[in-house]
């Protein structure tokens, strides 16, 4: 089987095949290699590769897996290329940008008003959660098209706070 893989944004492929004696894999255009993968605890994999021992902890998130190895965390997306083609068609990066609350919290204040032009990286709104105030920033430039919530309001995770067009 072949997969499209994104590791911290870098694209490559992973091929996995059966072999009489076990399993082999190939990353990108590299060599076929053998690895021994053992799930020692739920979500925790002990991997032996060329005599080296790795412990990988995998957490599934919405957009791929978070994999931590030796204190280093990587984001890994793994897709069957057939499905990947279908999905990427739906994942467009233009169109309105909805800035959503990453977690439940209270809106402290807006730093922009409807109709403002914003640049990438500009602060949009300050939200307070877990005793800390956090500023959400614009990922790209645009025009503030809507602010669906009000200052002082308590919002839940995923609530749209600012729409940029």
């Amino acid at each position, binding site marked *: 089987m072949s*997969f499209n*893989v994104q*590791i911290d944004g*870098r694209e*490559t492929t*992973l091929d*996995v095949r059966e072999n009489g*004696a*076990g*399993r082999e*894999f190939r*990353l990108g255009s*590299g060599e076929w*290699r053998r*690895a*021994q*993968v*053992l*799930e020692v*605890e*739920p*979500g*925790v*994999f*002990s*991997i032996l*590769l*060329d005599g*080296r021992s*790795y412990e*990988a*902890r*995998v*957490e*599934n998130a919405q957009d*791929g*897996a978070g*994999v*931590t*190895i*030796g*204190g*280093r*965390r*990587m*984001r*890994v997306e*793994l897709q069957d290329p057939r499905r990947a083609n279908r999905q990427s068609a739906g994942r467009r990066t233009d169109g309105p940008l909805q800035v959503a609350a*990453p*977690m*439940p*919290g209270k809106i402290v204040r807006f730093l922009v008003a409807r109709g403002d032009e914003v640049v990438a990286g500009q602060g949009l709104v300050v939200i307070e*959660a*877990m*005793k*800390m105030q*956090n*500023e*959400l*920033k614009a990922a790209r430039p645009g025009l503030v098209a809507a602010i669906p919530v009000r200052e002082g309001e308590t919002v839940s995770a995923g609530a749209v706070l600012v729409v940029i067009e």
Partner: protein
Amino acid sequence: MFQKILIANRGEIAVRIMRTLREMGIRTVAVYSDADRAAAHVRWADEAFHLGPAPSRESYLRIDRILEAACAHGAEAIHPGYGFLSENAEFAAACESAGFVFIGPPADSIRKMGSKTAARELAIAAGVPVVPGMRDGAKSPAEAGVFARTCGYPVLLKAVAGGGGKGMRRVDRDEDLEGAFRDASSEAGRAFGDASVYIEKLIENPRHIEIQLLGDKHGHMIHLGERECSIQRRHQKILEECPSPLLASKPEMRQKMGEAAIRAARAAGYYNAGTVEFLVERNENFYFLEMNTRLQVEHPVTELVTGLDLVRWQVEIAAGEKLTIAQEDLAWQGAAIECRVYAEDPDNQFFPSAGKITGLHEPAGPGVRLDSGIYDGWNVPLEYDPMLAKLAVWAGTRNHAIARMRRAIEEYHVAGVQTNLSLFADLVSDEAFVSGDLHTGFLEEFFQRRKAYAADADIEAVAALAAHAARPLTRIENGPAAAPASRWKAAGRDGLLR
């Protein structure tokens, strides 16, 4: 000695205090909000009292409910921890007048040190250096200029009524002063309705170094040396160490700062544990910043290096015991570092990350101390500070302590919520950090040069394999909803039996 003590706090600090109380044979009373019925501090307490709903002001900040709890459970003393009511003079006074011993300084000391300007005056009166500045507003640019030339550039113009950076101007040269003064003054006038501006020496990239004090009710007070707390993000300490890399080789400077801290605390009639914070310039001048009239988050590094249990001494002192340690008895052994592990997402602007802990592996072994308030399965609530645990290490030298911290971070894993552990992994591997040349702007500079903690060339292959192995097997349509299993798991076991 007390038979029973109520801990008016939650999370890791409540657990940490309980550990010492349990060792002292003192029963512990936990208090909890609706969000914390299953919290570690409730599970491990001897007794527990429900305060109210989750928001702090309806639970952990309710003085009346806490006194009610102390009364209902027959506690004799109350330990406030840090945060919440710990620096609330009214709470300290209320405890005492309700007949409970407040494990901390007298209410009056908290009050005196609680106001920044009052504390500054008090420090000046006690002969403790403060950041040079005018006490009142400058009447004219000329008056400001006289002061600026006296204390030396760069200086900071500040609105007397100010706050939030409004009416604040940095001035580096005499010729810029007049213009900056007028700008600051008019901005202050618009913002606060008061155009007065005063001037203060600008301390560039200072170190933040604090002195731990311990004093009994009989007038004996000692300092336990310093902690270096210059690694800060948004003015929040995230990594602390003892000794300070600066002071480790300067015992006379430690002594000078220690004596200054004791003078300031004595001026406030202080007893119990407390900390005096200083800004330290590159030329090693130090200036009183404020006093924290409670146990600090970072107290473990002092405990590791001095061998003292600060909470035990807090309780002994509150019970009226004499502090039986003389200043000259103290010795600072080796080096300790602490990292504050927060539930926050380093990939998303360190946004707090609440939720359920779905996996937990904690570091241990030689020289590792973990003070944690979480467990596998615990739901980190939204309502409180996102600190999960404090990871501290001790070793014979600072370099060994840094290596040990890196090792401990590698062992530490929290699943289900994001943490700042990867930031610490990179930070303790940073050359400038290892050199010990720290200042409060250090972390901001570090973010610019930050390099991911080294890994070998195959780490990406391994990450891909792990992600592949973790995929659930494709379910057979309409088949039984089997638990997700891994193809590789079986493969691994086959390999094992070969």
